[in-house]
């Protein structure tokens, strides 16, 4: 299926606004802490593809989830990860790109034992 337009060359006149090249050397990465819906949606960041995964955790994920009362209790060694829907064991010393995190990838993580405020997924 595709768009039905008055001109056959419709697509030649369109602009894909989310192209990787539009982000000044960064790629967009989404991250989501499962069962903590006080953060209403996954959160988005423009990040260099060569950022080490460890730095992504320490400098991006941790500070942004810090306001949640359960954030301090996270055991990062026990966290389970999914990258674009597939289970993953990220190598913290390797880059986002080397770990398979591309432009507009979604990184979801679960924190065993922590299921939100009073187990409510909040």
């Amino acid at each position: 299926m595709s768009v039905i337009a008055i001109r056959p060359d419709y697509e030649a006149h369109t602009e894909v606004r989310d192209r990787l090249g539009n982000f000044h050397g960064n790629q967009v990465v989404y991250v989501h802490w499962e069962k903590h819906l006080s953060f209403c949606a996954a959160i988005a960041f423009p990040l260099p593809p060569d950022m080490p995964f460890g730095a992504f955790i320490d400098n991006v994920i941790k500070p942004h989830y810090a306001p949640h009362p359960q954030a301090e209790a996270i055991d990062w060694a026990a966290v389970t990860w999914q990258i674009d829907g597939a289970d993953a064991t990220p190598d913290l010393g390797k880059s986002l790109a080397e770990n398979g995190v591309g432009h507009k990838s979604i990184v979801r993580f679960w924190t065993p034992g922590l299921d939100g405020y009073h187990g409510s997924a909040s």
Partner: protein
Amino acid sequence: MSARKLGLKQRYALMTRGLDWETTYQPMEEVYPYDRFEGIKIRDWSEWEDPFRLTMDSYWKFQAEKERKLYAVLDSFAQSNGQTGISDPRYINAIKLFITGVSPLEYQAHRGFAFTGRHLRGVGPRVAAQMQSLDELRHAQTQIHTISHYNKFFNGMAEWPHMHDRVWYLSVPKSFFDDARTAGPFEFMIAIGFAFEYVLTNLLFVPFMSGAAYNGDLATVTFGFSAQSDESRHMTLGIEVIKFLLEQHPDNLPIVQKWVDKWFWRGHRVLGLVAMMMDYMLPKKVMSWKEAWEIYFTEAGGALFQDLARYGLRPPKYADVATAEAEHISHQNWCTFYQYTHAAAFHTWLPTAQEMDWLSEKYPNTFDKYYRPRYEMWAQMEKDGHRFYNMALPQLCTTCQIPMVYTEPGDPTTIAFRQSMYKNERYHFCSDGCKDIFDAEPEKFAQSWLPVHQIFQGNCGGATVPDVLDWYKLKVGEDNLDFGQSPDRKTWDEWQASKSRLAG
């Protein structure tokens, strides 16, 4: 011998039919280039029935009369300081959402129907679309005039047209109409005329207008009344157009069904803003969103689609999903604005204990289990001096442009993530409904101007939150943040104090 007075039908025929001609310098196909490419087949335009048979001269007369009445009420509302008589100043935030999110859509509808009126070659729908175009312009104007009075006293309204084009959550209604207006004229008629004006309109106007009545906002009630007779004409046009298309040719059915599916889902997503307004922003509640959905969609919509079944049309795809979401959508939306209050042009607050009890009663299956704990946690954090803010930007759905906050059907603890790959780019969606819409027209939606990505690209005033708010013309500390500390609250408290001084 005096001229015999014409009957209504005859008069309508004389004043609307036979006024155009078959062009000879240019082929008709060139004069009406837009009414064929969508694949809709029309055998005979003259089969179009116009049940209103309204002619332009009577149209002007009716509208002028309504305008006189409306402006008389507005004058008296202003002179008697009607703004001091509303139920609770939090109510004004519903009006802020209306002027920034809804009134600009009236103007978009005006332009859309003007385009449609020009490009459909049948005279019946052309006349009807032209009148609706004028109605929509009038609605935009009367809403602006009515709300301008509140703008003298409260924040968040002054930059509404500017905000509509730029602010992240207003891209939701804006992109909805941009999508409809960049479609062909038949799709526009099904999108706005049928899906929005017929199937869903009661879920937009009844809540806002009854909400106004319940909360002492006489001015808004009056523009609602002034628009009411127009709305019934618009609904008639909406139902007429779908029946006409389905009767004209059997090949039209799959095309119309695809549009009905698409625009029902898109409308449902936009109306989430109304859901939140009803359940959280009205200090005096009319009914819950879930109740409104049951009355206006499940019952009224059910009867409508039963009636349309004889043409082979089935109810919109994912109507069952939308109905299940009525248990969640208002809570999930209000939670979103609560945590992004710094970036909203209206005020937010936590529901009071009494309001939470009302929500428990109205949402026995979901509120206490999933949403009350969230508000209790945030209330505790406020008390401890750590009011909860989300300081990162949310992932957005490529189709509806709403932050991806909606949960899996059947699992309110897990966000629904949907993806499509198109030409090696990954696109994200909040639901199967939004994914299907993208997959049907990826060339169109790959162009989405997603506010979060635009901020990252440096197209929204700068890299920091204050830069972006400045670009929105959103005044920090006046337009945004919680109601409790707002200048709106201060203004209201001063009015109350001066009233009690007078009384004392």
